[in-house]
């Protein structure tokens, strides 16, 4: 029993860390632009496929391919926001959120049009897992953990120490005041879209590294990503990390009492619970 819990905790922490990367993207976009951008799902997929192209077609190692995933998904994010979502923002939050859902369906089908529906796996050596003290840990899991933690540290460093990072936090905190102080909101919007969707792209690739990818990769995880952001506090970046770890561990630990088929329900239950008891989320909505 104890071994079982230990194994589930490890699996949950790894899943949670991977989930945290796109969750940071989601919550950062929310913090600056104030709408839930569900098109993150398809950017996850775009990143996964961009990484696939780099890894399989050009023979790049996984760590290099992750950078390609970041850049391509980030650029796609900026482009899609400029062309589709930005013109709709004056029409209200709900309209923009619905447009983002529509956008994600369109983009997902663009990916399907180019790559087809079949399942693709990254070109990685398949290794047997390590067994340590009765617990099973995969080499790829450890690598993914490393990439995810690295990406998160980079985000925190960027927000804390760079001028643009500070500008982003200023806009998230008080857009009017930031505008008066001369921070260009359009520039910050483009930047947060690039970084947020880029992180989603990394997340998509990390998800795919351990399994396989297809045009629905992003769609499958978007609920967990959304749940992580809500649980941690929409708009709070450390909150997204806490929320992601909570959801990741919670989904795994639920297996002690639930059949695996009901695992997806954990995300919904967490959203429900948090919105009822603490609507601002665990860490509230302070951006940083």
């Amino acid at each position, binding site marked *: 029993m104890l071994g079982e819990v230990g194994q589930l905790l490890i699996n949950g922490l790894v899943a949670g860390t991977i989930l945290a990367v796109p969750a940071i993207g989601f919550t950062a976009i929310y913090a600056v632009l104030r709408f839930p951008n569900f098109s993150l799902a398809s950017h996850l997929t775009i990143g996964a496929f961009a990484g696939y192209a780099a890894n399989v077609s050009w023979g790049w190692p996984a760590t290099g391919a992750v950078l390609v995933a970041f850049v391509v998904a980030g650029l796609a994010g900026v482009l899609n926001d400029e062309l589709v979502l930005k013109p709709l923002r004056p029409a209200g939050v709900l309209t923009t959120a619905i447009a983002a859902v529509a956008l994600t369906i369109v983009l997902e089908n663009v990916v399907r049009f180019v790559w087809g529906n079949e*399942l693709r796996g990254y070109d990685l050596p398949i290794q047997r897992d390590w067994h340590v003290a009765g617990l099973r840990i995969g080499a790829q899991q450890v690598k993914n953990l490393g990439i995810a933690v690295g990406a998160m540290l980079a985000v925190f460093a960027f927000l804390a120490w760079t001028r643009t990072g500070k500008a982003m936090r200023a806009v998230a905190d008080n857009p009017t005041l930031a505008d008066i102080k001369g921070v260009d909101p359009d520039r910050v919007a483009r930047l947060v879209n690039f970084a947020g969707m880029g992180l989603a792209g990394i997340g998509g690739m990390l998800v795919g590294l351990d399994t396989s990818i297809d045009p629905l990769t992003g769609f499958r995880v978007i609920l967990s990503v959304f749940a992580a952001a809500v649980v941690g506090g929409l708009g709070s970046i450390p909150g997204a990390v806490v929320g992601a770890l909570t959801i990741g561990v919670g989904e*795994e630990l639920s297996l002690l009492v639930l059949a695996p*088929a009901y695992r997806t329900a954990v995300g919904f239950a967490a959203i429900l619970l948090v919105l009822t008891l603490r609507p601002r989320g665990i860490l509230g909505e302070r951006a940083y």
Partner: protein
Amino acid sequence: MSETRLSRRTLLTSAAAAAGALALPARARAQGAPVRLGTLTPLTGAGGSYGPPMRRAMEWVVGEVNAAGGILGRQVELVSEDDQTNPEAAVRAARKLIDVDRVAAIMGTWASAVTTAVAPLCWESKTFLTTVSGSDSITQLPHQGYLIRTQPNTHLQIGKLGDFLLWLKVKRVFVLGAQTPFALPSQNRLREILTKGGSEMVGAVIYDKDKTTFRSEIDQALRTKPDMVYLNGYTPDVTVLAKELYKAGYTGGRIALGYAANAKFLASLPAEVTDGIYTAQPTSALESTGYRRLAKALGSDDLDPYTCQCHDHASLVCLAIGHARGEATGTAVRDHLRRISQGPGVKVDSAVEGLKLLAQGKAINYEGASGPCDFTESGDILDCKIRFEQAEKGKFKVVTTL
């Protein structure tokens, strides 16, 4: 340009004449007239690669029957339509076959959705329907006996799979099943077979196939120390499961159905992961003379199961009409089909040979190119051969056929 006008009088006269002709007893109309049968196969759409050989197999059977003098002297006329793998198009085509061509039987529907749409038209017009669709629900339709299918359903396939596992002397089986309508029925059926044979189902998990990782499910399976894991899902999730089982250090047996562990599955994983995995899939009676004759006639040594099944559809329908002394109606086919498909009669594997024996007043039992072709009351086949293969160095090799 002169205008042809249809006066009300001519219209009425000709309509009355036509109605009168139709009102004549069927027997009188059909004297020496050809027997009409319809084929409804997917020549285009998702099933488009299967339909053409299916139709050719039926055309070949009819050609042979006609060359040998037809059914009790009556030639057989085949009317072929395309169902476009689309229920809507299939219904239009079936209406034409039933109302205009007045066929006794429609043969060869492939997609389950198409069969489900066409079946009510058939039983309402008392037209016989033969299909290769596999969905369990099809034979549960209220078809009043006007339908048979030659594709095995879940119950039959899993039963054979259980027999195979017992044959392998497997003792502890774990089932990892995707969440599908067939997950629970196949689990229960397998448990029944294993328990009866002295083995055990040590556990089963139904997983959400849209999850990105199945580590916890794998852990759950491995804790029960199985010597065989049955992966009852589709290609995407079975691929991930096979990979994760390997990573987890599992070295026992694995088995999956042929449509899940297919060529694409082999291609997407390295051989060290796929080696040793067993697959099960329905197969035609490859050793039978019926199969070999058809393969030679169609110029292929690897016929797909549907083509063989369609060969049997046409043969069965011709023989049933022969048994009904030439009465070419759907009801006659329904009432006589099981009298030529099963029972103690002389075994035959071709329509021509069967018709000859029927003419001599002998009883026959048709065994086809697809299998024994014996049917239950509800129209399912009683038995079917399942071929078991094992992956070796990235290729499948036949292990046995049950």
